[in-house]
C-alpha cells in the first residue's frame, strides 16, 4: 500500500470513531526542532495521521482533533519536540466498542 492509500484508509477508519473535541490542541510541537528533524517520524508513525508536514513551510501541522491518545508520537519523536498532554476533562476520543 502506498502512503496516499494508507492515509485514505486511516481517514475512512477515523470516521467510525466518536470524539468530544475541544477547541484547544493538547499536542504542541516545537517547529524549530521539527525543521531540523530528518526522520519526521510523527508523519508516518501516528495511527491517526495527526501530523502532516507542510510542503512549503516544512512546518508540522497538528490535526489534534483526530488524536487517539495513544502516545506513540511522544515516545518516538527523535527530537523530543512534542509536548503531549491529555485533552481537557471529558474531551477527546470516545471508544465505545474497543
Amino acid at each position: 500500500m502506498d502512503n496516499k492509500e494508507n492515509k485514505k484508509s486511516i481517514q475512512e477508519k477515523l470516521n467510525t470513531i466518536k470524539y468530544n473535541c475541544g477547541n484547544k490542541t493538547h499536542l504542541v510541537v516545537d517547529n524549530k526542532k521539527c525543521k531540523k528533524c530528518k526522520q519526521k517520524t510523527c508523519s508516518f508513525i501516528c495511527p491517526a495521521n495527526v501530523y502532516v508536514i507542510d510542503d512549503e513551510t516544512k512546518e508540522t501541522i497538528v490535526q489534534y482533533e483526530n488524536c487517539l491518545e495513544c502516545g506513540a508520537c511522544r515516545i518516538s519523536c527523535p527530537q523530543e519536540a512534542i509536548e503531549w498532554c491529555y485533552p481537557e476533562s471529558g474531551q477527546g476520543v470516545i471508544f465505545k466498542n474497543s
Partner: protein
Amino acid sequence: MSNDFNTDVIVVGAGPAGISAAIEIAKNGRKVVLLERAQYPGSKNVYGGAVYHKALEFVFKDQVQELPYERIINEHTYSFLNEDSSFEMTYKNANSKNAYAIKRFNLEHWMIEQAKKQGVYYSPNTLVKKLIENNGSVIGVETEFEQYFAPVVILADGVNSLLAKKLGLRENFKSKNFILSAKEVIKLNKKIIEQRFNLKEDLTNGVNKQYFGSDFGKLKGIKNLFMMSYLYTFKDTISIGVGVNLEDLAKTKLNINEVLDAVKQHPDIAPLIEDGQLIEYSAHLIPEGGFNNLPKLYANGVMLVGDAAGFVNSVHFEGTNFALVSGKLAGETALIALDDNDFRESKLSVYKEKLEESFILKDLYAYRNVIELLHSRANSLSVYYPNKIKEFFEIVTGVSCTPKAKEFRGFLIQFIKDRKISELFKDIYAFSKCALDVLLGK
C-alpha cells in the same frame, strides 16, 4: 484522617487497576476518591478483547457471575502465517470459563457500578494536571478545577503515565519498550460468526486466535517484522488487531494501520471478516519493557499500578489481570499505611513485597529476557520457520508421487543449508534460554 486531607486515598485513573485499588480501600471502610479524565468509564481504554476470570474473581468475588460478557473465550488458536498458507494449532475446552470477551466500555461501566456499591466516590470528567508534593511526599492532586489532598495517591493513569514521569518515577520512555497496536471492531450477524467459527448460540464459547508470521510480501518492510496479530469473537462483532514494536515501526517507516490492513488481507483471515462492517478503529500502546525496565513502583505517598507500572506479559497477552491484582495489592498496602499512619516510602515497600509474593513480579522476572530474545530472532519466527513449516507440510500433504524418503531427506538438508548454520544455533540458544528462564522462574 487528618483535617488537612479530603480523603484517605486518591486513585488516578478508572481502569482495571485503579478500580480494583479503590474497591479494596472502600470495602475496608476507608474513604477513597477515584478520578477519571474520561466522560465515560472505559472510553479511553483499548485491549485485545478478553479479561480473565481468576483475576476478576480476586477483586469482585461472586459478582463475576454477573459480568455482562459477550462470549466466554475457551478456544485458542495459534497460527503461523505465510504469504498463501498457514499452520494452525487449536486448543479448545468448551467447559472452561477462564476468559470473557467484553468491550472495555461495558467492562469498565460494570466495574464502576461494583465500585460505587462498595462506597467508592467516583468522579468522571476529572483530569489530574499534576501531583501536589510537600517535603518530598505526594500529598494530593491538582485537577483543572481544584485541589484534593490525601496521604496516599495511587497512580493508575495508564501506559503513558504522565504523572509518574513528572514525579521522576519513570524517566526512560524508550520506543523499543513499547508495542503499538491498532485494532478494528467489525460487525457481523451473530449467526454468521457462529457458523464461521463453529460456536454455540448460547455464547458459552468463543475463539481467540493469535497469529505469528509477517512474510506477506506486498507491504514493503513488513517481512522480518516481529509482530503478533490477534482476533477475538464477540457476540455480533469480531475484534482484529496487530501489535508491532514502536522502534521497529520507526525503523521500517511503516504505519501500524497499513500493517493491520495487510493482516486483514491474508487469505486465512479475510474470509473470517468478509462482509463485516467496521464499527470502530482504535490504537493503543502496550508497555513491553518488562522486568528490566520497570519504573520505581512507589515513593513517599505514592504507588504505581497496572500499565502505569509497566505490568504486562505480552507473550501471553496478559495485562488486565496484572492490573486488577496489582491494584488490589496497592489497595491493601494503602490500608496498612493508613492503620500505621505512615506513608513514607519505607512503609509503602510493603507493596513491593506483595508484588514479589504474587505472580506479578515472579512472572515478569521469569519472562524478563523472553521478548528481547524472541525479538532478536524475528526472522526465524516471522519468516524462516513459517516457511519451513510450509515446506514440511507440502511434503506431508502434497502427494507428489515422489518417494517420501527422498523428500524428507531433502527437507532436512535444506533446513540446515538454507541459511548459515550459526543461525540455527542462535535460535536454539534463544529458545532454550526462554524455556529455561520461564521454568526456573523466581
